[in-house]
């Protein structure tokens, strides 16, 4: 027999308190999972850092030969080789991500200002879906277009024979180049920048702009001196977040950057733009079959942990930079 008080005293199986606790537990578990990911990846990469010390980030020897030696030493199972100097890959990452971020920053700022303030309504209605479209095209399609359209174009029409001959004893120029990677990456990260910039510019209180215009400053100057300055947090955040995105781009760059562990030198003149290289992220995807070899596996995880830590720091910085903007909502 049931106790008549049963239904009144015992809380419902899905009571409020339990609901809060179980939701909180799911959240905490997800949190723990992400932290575990950070720890796992760094721990797996540690042997590579431990064997090379700070020279891991330095230059020396050919990266491609080092990767090959590591792979072979893992296959034979004897004495593992860990020597790895990633500077060529890091330098390529800096050039491509930096170049794309710089190009994208300038164009995104102008486009965001245009979309928010100066474009006529019909232009705004075109630009919104255009930005969304560019943001949602998968990276592999960008890569395919790069490899089948942009790379042959650069190889056949932009680089002339004299240029090719001048560096033929070091590296062959075929169109797989720094500039191809930078240009496509610019188009890929610009939508992210534009949308964050535009959100920030829109949240600038209208009366600040009106006050400036009331003093006789024209709309253009007003918007750049007041609007863009007030939206600085969003501009910093957008740039940083887009850089984090660019840093992790592996597939497109694996397709167009040329996949040679080579560090283009800007002091050689503009020809460095046409030279192939390979950033950090594509290195992982192209050596993924080498995971069976322990030293190469640890090295790939070391590369991944460098990417992970820098991307996490960049995202966190972007998130922190965005916080001051919330004040404007109250203003």
């Amino acid at each position: 027999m049931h106790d008549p008080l049963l239904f009144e005293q015992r809380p419902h199986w899905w009571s409020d308190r339990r609901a809060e606790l179980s939701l909180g537990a799911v959240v905490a578990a997800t949190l723990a999972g992400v932290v575990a990911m950070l720890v796992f990846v760094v721990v797996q990469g540690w042997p590579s850092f431990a064997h090379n010390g700070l020279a891991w980030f330095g230059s020396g020897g050919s990266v491609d030969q080092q990767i090959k030696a590591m792979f072979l030493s893992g296959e034979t199972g004897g004495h593992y080789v860990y020597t790895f100097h990633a500077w060529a890959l890091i330098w390529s990452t800096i050039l491509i991500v930096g170049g794309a971020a710089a190009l994208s920053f300038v164009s995104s700022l102008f486009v965001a200002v245009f979309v928010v303030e100066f474009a006529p309504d019909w232009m705004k209605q075109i630009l919104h879906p255009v930005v969304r479209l560019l943001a949602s095209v998968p990276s592999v399609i960008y890569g395919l277009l790069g490899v089948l359209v942009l790379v042959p174009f650069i190889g056949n029409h932009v680089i002339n024979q004299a240029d090719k001959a001048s560096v033929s004893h070091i590296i062959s120029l075929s169109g797989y180049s720094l500039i191809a990677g930078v240009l496509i990456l610019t188009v890929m990260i610009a939508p992210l920048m534009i949308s964050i910039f535009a959100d920030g510019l829109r949240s600038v209180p209208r009366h600040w702009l009106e006050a400036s215009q009331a003093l006789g400053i024209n709309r253009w100057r007003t918007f750049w001196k007041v609007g863009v300055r007030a939206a600085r947090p969003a501009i910093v955040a957008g740039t940083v977040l887009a850089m984090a995105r660019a840093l992790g781009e592996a597939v497109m760059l694996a397709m167009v950057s040329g996949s040679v562990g080579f560090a283009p030198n800007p002091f050689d003149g503009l020809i460095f733009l046409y030279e192939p290289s390979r950033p950090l992220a594509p290195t992982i995807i192209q050596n993924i079959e080498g995971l069976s070899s322990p030293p190469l596996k640890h090295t790939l995880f070391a590369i991944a942990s460098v990417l992970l830590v820098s991307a996490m720091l960049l995202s966190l910085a972007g998130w922190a930079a965005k916080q001051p903007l919330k004040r404007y909502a109250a203003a």
Partner: protein
Amino acid sequence: MSGEALTRPAVLPPRKGATEASSTWSRMDRLGLAICWLLGVLFCAIAAAIVIFMMVQGIKYLRPSLLVTSPTAGFSESQTGGFLDPLIGTVVVALLGLAIALPLGVTIAVWLTEYGRPFSLARATESTIEMLAGVPDIVLALFGLLIFSSPILGFLSRSSGHVVFGRSFFAAGAMLSLVALPLIVGSTREGLQAIPAHIREASLAVGKTRFATIRRILLPTARPSVITGSMLGLGRIIGDTAIIVVLLGATLTTNPAGGTPVLGVLKGTGSTLTSFIYANSPTGEANQPTKAYAAAFVLLLVVLALNLCVDLIGRRRKAVTWSS
């Protein structure tokens, strides 16, 4: 200022032509505006070029037979078959990823907006989700390979003896859900935050518990936001390549592990449209650019359709407003 503007009653909204024309600006300012126009038109041109070029290539190379035949190894276009398996693979991976990301994302968003205590855990969660959005997918792929090739999770992929392969639809779907998670959390949170406090208070006042309020009132109201977030997440899952290439194995055809009908496929390896394009690009192993173009066209159509859905939902969402 003309006299007409001064005598206009103050209550009238500013007229359309009330802002000053750019012809009164200095030359530098007008140059700046010209750059704005140039870049705006340039972006439109790039987008149009991508869509039109892909459409031309798609119409040229896409045959209905490609959609229903499986890829086979071969050296010429007539031998290599179509991309039925990648098409199915994309659907499977998208469903798996969403099946994990949707409940998890909604749970996190609900907890963050409706409970959010202790405060430190809420802040930590917020920043972790933010960080997760920035984690490169190739790192997620490596991490996935690490955990799914551990013996404990061996039942989720092919294994021989003590060696766990670690590559399967399960593994890829689980890692892809992490790609979609931040988008779903962000969109759901926005939707929940847009619901005014008096709606919650009204529900609590008639004796509903907080959880009943969430389940019966808040979530149904925020449904368009949840769907928008899922669509955005779905777009990211479908478009992702690195995780697929690493975690789904390098086989072009679906390669089930074991005899169980559905479970075997999920435990086995396969391909999706993105990995098919990657393998068929000139830098890939199969190298059949015309097939890659056809598959890329299909992929682009799917992504555009998802975009359209988000647009339609967004328009409907704007129609619902709270009277204050």
